[in-house]
């Protein structure tokens, strides 16, 4: 039976966890199960950071369960331009987050469950955690064909990925987190996890595309709640603790002192985009202007998410060379960001001759360059 405890009934989490079995209604001698009430990716990632930085887990483990509103989450050393379709994401208000663990890019929505297994560094064991999840699923639906691979994926029916894994090893604490597709929007997943950007050369860690499936497609009676409950039950059984889940509010500073600062940091442009490893974009565009096809060559170097150097090659005399080099000069140092580029472009337009033809060529060029971002 699941007893969902409101945190009001427990001592402050960080004290309770440091003093064995103090103050909790369920005995948490060697394990604790927490579930976030928030669906905000940044708040939930901040919980992971907080536990990683503040807890000592020598003799206890923690399972953290969380779900998010539509978000794409990239790995620590990945390149968002290489991994996802930022344009669609902006249109559909899908957030972008960079996590601190390694691994590849995933799509989250409320039909996806995230599980984080916190242990001491010594007790870090991804396969054991995944076997736990498999046992939980098989206890729910014995007919399911679910297994863990060497890459720490979970496959359904031998070839559909339902879970991906990533991990972080810190000073004394380690965490292994994984996704679990229950009833996520697969159509949206495929479209946002496909990058439209060409010509990117980068040494960022790449993702491995895979065929995916939801558990719901195998059995429509399964919901996220049922699955989370089964996993919590299996975790409780393994750790010989009570099957009770503590609800946590990641915005509560009294329970997680300092967490709001961590949340803020995860939302900054400098973290999400600025941490992208150095890369270059070298590509050719075809612009259509008055029924003629024009070739534009672009060569951009990007460091910390900002344009370090850029070169735009246009057909001779299509635009006054001075204008083109003004654009290149102003782009240098600015963020690789369409709204920043648009602002820059309109500012430059104001200082150039008021000529309709020139303006329309300029707008076309800038729009073309913005499609890179």
């Amino acid at each position, binding site marked *: 039976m699941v007893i969902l405890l409101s945190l009001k009934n427990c001592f402050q989490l960080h004290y309770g966890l440091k003093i064995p079995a103090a103050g909790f209604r369920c005995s948490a001698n060697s394990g604790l199960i927490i579930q976030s009430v928030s669906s905000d990716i940044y708040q939930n990632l901040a919980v992971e950071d907080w536990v990683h930085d503040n807890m000592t887990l020598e003799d206890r483990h923690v399972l953290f369960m969380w779900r998010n509103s539509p978000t794409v989450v990239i*790995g*620590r*050393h990945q390149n968002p331009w290489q991994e996802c379709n930022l344009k669609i994401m902006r249109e559909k208000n899908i957030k972008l987050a960079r996590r*601190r*663990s*390694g691994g590849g890019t995933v799509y989250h929505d409320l039909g996806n469950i995230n599980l984080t297994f916190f242990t001491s560094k010594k007790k*870090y064991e991804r396969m054991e955690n995944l076997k736990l999840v498999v046992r939980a699923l098989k206890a729910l639906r014995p007919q399911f064909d679910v297994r863990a691979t060497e890459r720490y994926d979970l496959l359904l029916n031998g070839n559909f990925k339902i879970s991906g894994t*990533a*991990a*972080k*090893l*810190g*000073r004394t604490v*380690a965490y*292994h987190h994984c996704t679990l597709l229950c009833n996520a929007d697969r159509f949206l997943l495929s479209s946002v996890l496909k990058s439209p950007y060409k010509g990117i050369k980068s*040494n*960022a*860690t790449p993702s491995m595309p895979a065929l995916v499936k939801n558990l719901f497609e195998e059995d429509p009676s399964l919901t996220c709640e049922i699955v989370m409950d089964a996993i919590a039950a299996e975790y409780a059984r393994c750790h010989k603790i009570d099957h009770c889940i503590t609800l946590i509010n990641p915005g509560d500073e009294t329970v997680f002192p300092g967490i709001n600062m961590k949340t803020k940091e995860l939302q900054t442009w400098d973290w999400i985009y600025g941490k992208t*490893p*150095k890369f270059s974009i070298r590509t050719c565009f075809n612009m259509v202007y008055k029924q003629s096809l024009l070739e534009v060559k672009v060569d951009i170097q990007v460091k910390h998410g900002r344009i370090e150097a850029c070169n735009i090659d246009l057909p001779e005399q299509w635009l006054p060379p001075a204008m083109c080099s003004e654009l290149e000069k102003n782009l240098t140092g600015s963020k690789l960001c369409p709204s920043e580029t648009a602002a820059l472009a309109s500012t430059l337009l104001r200082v150039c001759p008021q000529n309709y033809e020139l303006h329309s060529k300029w707008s076309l060029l800038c729009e073309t360059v913005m499609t890179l971002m």
Partner: protein
Amino acid sequence: MALRALRRVAVSLAPRCPGRGGPFPSARSAWPQAAPARSLGTSALLFSARKFTDKHEWISVENGIGTVGISNFAQEALGDVVYCSLPEIGTKLNKQDEFGALESVKAASELYSPLTGEVTEINTALADNPGLVNKSCYEDGWLIKMTVDNPSELNELMNEDAYEKYIKSIED
């Protein structure tokens, strides 16, 4: 401040003094003369055999510059390194500060500075060849070079024998 200036002098002098044990030319420094330099703390800042931290980083100091990497035990435990995230040159680090991360098939693992100092160089070969950390963790797979601001911190680190014993104890 003066100490730092002296160190820079020492660094630029060292290549010209074939035997590092010689005292500094008196015209150039206000540091009290004492020979041999080996017996002073300054000898540690000029040169130190490889020392290890309990987080499995190593540092060896030559001409006042420390080269930092991870130990063989660490690279084996990590598995194949796929990405090295290193700091910018000029970054100031305190002992035990996080200075970067290595991503491997196993996880993203943080790197901790063995000493207090400033980053002077990073191993750019690792950008295209992160596997060097596995193949040659003590030579070509070095991570950063840094100044040694507090040479006494070296005494807090383990020498090779002590580190071997340490690994054995944690493996049990």
